């Protein structure tokens, strides 16, 4: 199977959460890229990290995919402190492979949801919009 790109997927999340930029389905894992832009809500942009128990919950299925790896963002309790209100961070989360079909899922950092958690709901994978990649991971 060639890796598949889902660019700029649709989803629902809290204001201030990182932007989900693209989802890439590899044969053996799922990669999700995010970009975070700080604003003046927090002093000097605040800080970020990711909960180690972050998971993907596939709709209409009991399947949960536990996060395998976080790249360029610290895993809780470590923190990345921003330096200003115009700072930014690009990071990637890796999960086990998503099924290669039409589906919707949630990406949950923790529950119950709060305004500061990176929870994303109703992320849609439309197989018709997949773009195959030439290169493998």
């Amino acid at each position, binding site marked *: 199977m060639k890796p598949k790109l889902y660019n700029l997927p649709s989803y629902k999340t809290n204001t201030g959460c990182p932007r989900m930029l*693209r989802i890439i389905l590899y044969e053996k894992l799922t990669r999700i890229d995010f970009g975070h832009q700080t604003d003046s809500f927090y002093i000097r942009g605040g800080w970020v990290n990711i909960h180690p128990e972050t998971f993907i919950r596939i709709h209409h299925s009991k399947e949960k995919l536990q996060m395998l790896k976080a790249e360029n963002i610290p895993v809780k309790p470590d923190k990345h402190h921003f330096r200003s209100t115009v700072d930014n961070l690009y990071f990637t989360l890796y999960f086990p492979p998503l099924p290669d079909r039409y589906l919707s899922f949630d990406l949950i950092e923790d529950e119950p949801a709060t305004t500061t958690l990176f929870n994303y709901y109703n992320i849609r994978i439309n197989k018709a919009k997949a*773009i195959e990649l030439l290169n493998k991971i």
Partner: protein
Amino acid sequence: MSLNKEAYIRYKVIDECLTNRFVTYPTIQDLIAACERKLGKIFSVSAIQKDIKAMKEDDALGFLAPIKFSRQFNGYYYADTDYSINTIPLNSSDIEALDAVSDMLEAFTGSRISENFNQAVEKIFASLKEKKFQIGKKQRCIQTDTYNQQKGFENFERLLHAVANRIPVCFIHYSYKKRCFNSVITHPMLLKEFQNRWYLVAYSEQHKGLRTFGLDRIRDPLFLDKPFHEVDERIVNAYFSHIYGTYPWPGYKHQKIYFYASALMSDYIKANPIHESQKEHNVKSDGSIVFEVELIPSQELVNFFKQFSPDVVVLKPSPIVKAVEDALKTAFFRYRMNHHETQTV
């Protein structure tokens, strides 16, 4: 001499066959087969025989390879078993030519291109060093404007590959101006340098047109397996024919821009025209000149006027005058503010 690239590959293949310790005395058919495997085309016996002759006898080529034919083993061999064309030292004209550009290459590898290119150029330096010692310590002849900590060059080779092979690319782009990340699907057309910074010019699916992306703002380019959206080369060339810099103001067409330059700056601007359309519109008795250029307004043009203010003053059109004025007012205000804040630094 100008050495045909394919011929040089054949010489290398023949050399590899003749230096192979495990399969000695290759026949002419072996050599033909090896060349055909490497280059994917058919070669005649006479073509390979001509190559062998050239390797043996062509002074300009410079190999003078000791290739012999063994009747006993019905194959070719090097009379000098240590010989290989790879061990041929550079001749004097090679050295002279490489020496002239080595400083430039050194600066280039230090800042602009990726590891694979660096390695290739380092091999040339290694060859040169031995000769340099023989010539004596060489004084540096060329120094280019480089800064080794520039971001984005790690993707240079990958993007160059995409441009050369017409491969669509998806990358993460961070806009300094909008302060946001985006994931864009592009069809790369060109890599362009302006004032020691590199840019990718590509057709953007999202913008449905040509766009310029600074390499320092590009992350994680991925090659896509989809048809390439070709843009006519004339359109790509026209995109840059009326611009100073890389980021034209959206929605503006090329227009006549007039600017005053003091006598001092006029000399520099005459010696280094900012664009091929540059004309001297009005020369005054004090040596100052009003220049005319025909360009699409761009951020880099505004920066140029800011940089050389007050020796350069843009006269019209009014949107550029206002952009420069606003920037200079802001700068003046910040200098005034900082004058008070310096006490706390």
